[in-house]
């Protein structure tokens, strides 16, 4: 069964089913690998590059677990500290992005578990809800396309919302670990993802969003 670690040691980051990547995200991973290599070769500035490049990515990875904004910032920070401490265990520089994402997600889950310990709800892993686009919490002004998408997403069940945010966020989702995190059989992630996307397409279609 899935074991909690404060920080994972170097973990395999090969995903079982890599999705097609858009070119920009792929180049982010490449740039991260090259910055990591330069940093390991002694170039201190490269660490700054790496942090500026990957922190926004890690932010979304952490937020996708449903963690609040403030603790999410702490998790991103401790993820970087973990990387600095474990740098010699990351043998392949190209794997650094995967390592960072995995570490951030693990740490986010650990933090969530601690903060929700007082309310032992079995399904608290699924406690994730998009605010309504019209609610006061959404202070961002969305364009029509985003608003339509958000409405459609918010009509899906929570598991779908969570899973879609995770797989959309992580360019190379590691299904084994996502399955452990979401307490789903690994074999069901792919089909569930497909079903969730189908539902989303249906919602968009129904509301005329899929123009």
């Amino acid at each position, binding site marked *: 069964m899935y074991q909690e670690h404060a920080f994972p040691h170097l973990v395999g980051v090969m995903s079982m089913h890599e*999705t097609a990547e858009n070119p920009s995200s792929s180049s982010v991973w490449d740039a991260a690998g090259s910055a990591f290599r330069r940093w390991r070769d002694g170039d201190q500035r490269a660490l700054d590059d790496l942090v500026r490049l990957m922190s926004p990515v890690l932010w979304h990875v952490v937020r996708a677990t449903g963690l609040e904004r403030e603790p999410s910032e702490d998790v991103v920070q401790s993820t970087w500290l973990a990387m600095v401490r474990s740098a010699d265990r990351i043998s392949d520089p190209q794997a650094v992005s995967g390592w960072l994402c995995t570490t951030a997600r693990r740490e986010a889950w650990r933090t969530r578990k601690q903060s929700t310990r007082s309310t032992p709800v079995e399904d608290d892993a699924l406690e994730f809800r998009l605010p309504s686009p019209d609610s006061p919490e959404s202070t961002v002004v969305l364009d029509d396309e985003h608003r339509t998408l958000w409405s459609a997403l918010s009509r899906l069940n929570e598991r779908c919302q969570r899973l879609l945010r995770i797989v959309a966020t992580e360019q190379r989702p590691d299904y084994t670990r996502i399955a452990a995190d979401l307490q789903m059989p690994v074999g069901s992630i792919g089909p569930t993802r497909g079903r969730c996307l189908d539902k989303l397409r249906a919602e968009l279609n129904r509301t005329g969003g899929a123009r």
Partner: protein
Amino acid sequence: MNAVPTDDELLASIRDLFEVVDPPPADLADGVLAALAAADLELEYELLTLVESTGVPNGVRSADTGSDTDSGPWTLEYSSDTCHLLVRVSTVDGTRRIDGWVVPAVPMAVSLSPVGSSGVTAQETQVDDHGRFEFTAPGSGQARLSFVPAAGDDPTAPRPFATPPFLV
């Protein structure tokens, strides 16, 4: 978006959506870098201890304007179990310069890095045969020096070491 978006198009739209509705805090990376500046040196580098300083200006950052030609030179002396470092910061014709002398005088790369929002320009040089090095146009602000001895077979070569932040 076309008539029926593909899975990848949908996921890309979702990613875009969350970048808009849930952007990271503007200072996220700066916060990380500040935390790392405090922590990583101790882990990756042996951190030198300031043992003596003379003439260091009181202001945290007296030099942002770059026109304070009147600030005199100051010296900082650092040491660890294996290394000793003397740094002299002076101003010549309105331009800062850093002169350093490190013992043992083994081949190593010296990096000058800005700390925080500093006017210091990151740069790198080599220690000469006598353990001396210089930065003739470092800029000014908070900075630190880190030393990486040339990788070789010399078992007596020190491991990488660095200073705490100091004012240039």
